[in-house]
């Protein structure tokens, strides 16, 4: 069996399994009993399970929702495992690291977002994130298989370098981490707006407390930022080797700097100017928008040295 073909089939399989996870997370979200709006952010080890309240003590609607949560968790992890195999096989088929074109960034990036979510979920109560993270992942994979797909093949000469491994891996990891931060900031804005208006609908009351969402958004972004910084520097080193200059205002370079500046502004505003909450969340969403534009928009809209792999 051809590895490239098997990889494609497994990407489709991961999408189907994650679609089941999406439905289960939606059911969990719809059935979960609402949280009090002033609830303290209690770290609950999601996925560990041992510290969860026993089922006997839980109200019936909690029990029903927990069952869906379990199904969602199980299928989410299964989808992640399937996608891992798909990404590895893609690398085997192309005989290089599986992140050299837009399609491969999308599948590898999705895998990293899923892993980042699972890691964050071990430390923070991000049960409410699962639905939205899965939605983003399905959207990305859907875009990957329909619009971005290119057959597995060798690299153009300029990309054949160990820096492909370092620079692109760092950029993809940072983007995955920022994606989790984006979900946290978005949910924060929804929650905070509802709190301010005194709304307490079933939807809003199931989100974590605004302050907890704000804190998760900051910590995740603070973790991703040095990785992004390193990715930009590694890119400059590679550019020096490949193109003879370390910085040439290529569209990708320029936009990676813009993303860096806006995320730096976010962190700076928080730690020095004391911006919290709403203003900070808006800045972080703007930063994420520039990241997305750098990833998709630059390759589609501009002709630059980072145009490769058909897009």
């Amino acid at each position, binding site marked *: 069996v051809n590895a490239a073909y098997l990889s494609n089939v497994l990407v489709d399989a991961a999408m189907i399994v994650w679609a089941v996870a999406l439905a289960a997370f939606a059911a969990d979200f719809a059935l979960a009993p609402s949280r009090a709006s002033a609830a303290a952010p209690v770290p609950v080890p999601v996925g560990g399970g041992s510290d969860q309240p026993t089922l006997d003590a839980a109200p019936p609607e909690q029990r029903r929702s927990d069952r869906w949560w379990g199904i969602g968790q199980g299928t989410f992890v299964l989808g992640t495992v399937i996608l891992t195999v798909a990404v590895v096989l893609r690398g085997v088929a192309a005989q290089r690291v599986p992140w050299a074109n837009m399609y491969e960034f999308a599948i590898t990036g999705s895998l990293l977002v899923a892993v980042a979510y699972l890691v964050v979920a071990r430390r923070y109560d991000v049960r409410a994130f699962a639905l939205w993270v899965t939605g983003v992942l399905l959207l990305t994979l859907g875009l990957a298989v329909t619009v971005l797909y290119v057959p597995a093949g060798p690299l153009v000469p300029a990309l054949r370098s160990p820096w492909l491994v370092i620079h692109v891996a760092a950029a993809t990891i940072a983007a995955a981490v920022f994606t989790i931060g984006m979900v946290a900031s978005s949910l924060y804005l929804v929650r905070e707006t509802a709190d301010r208006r005194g709304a307490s609908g079933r939807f809003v009351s199931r989100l974590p407390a605004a302050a907890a969402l704000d804190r998760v958004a900051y910590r995740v972004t603070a973790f991703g930022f040095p990785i992004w*910084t390193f990715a930009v520097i590694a890119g400059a080193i590679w550019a020096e080797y490949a193109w003879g*200059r370390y910085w040439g205002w290529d569209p990708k370079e320029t936009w990676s700097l813009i993303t860096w500046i806006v995320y730096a502004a976010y962190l700076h505003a928080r*730690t020095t100017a004391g911006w919290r909450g709403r203003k900070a969340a808006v800045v972080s969403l703007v930063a994420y928008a520039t990241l997305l534009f750098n990833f998709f928009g630059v390759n589609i809209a501009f002709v630059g040295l980072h145009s490769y792999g058909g897009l």
Partner: protein
Amino acid sequence: VNLQVSRNAGKELALAGALLAIGGLLPTLFVRRRRVWVRVRTDPTDATAGTVIELAGLDRAESSDDLAAEITSLRTALQKETR
């Protein structure tokens, strides 16, 4: 054949600057900055009043959720020390 030759005199300097920037960035983001005050007061006019020790803390980092626990543990340590 298309040949291109370039020389950047300042590239080592730029690299050193970038690495220093990362070196500065990491502690900025991950070192917890906080201040703790301990004030020891005795009443000079009243020898029997004993000593009052006051503790206060100010957290400059985002992770302010465990400052209270830290002050409490400091208080426990001081109580052991003064007993």
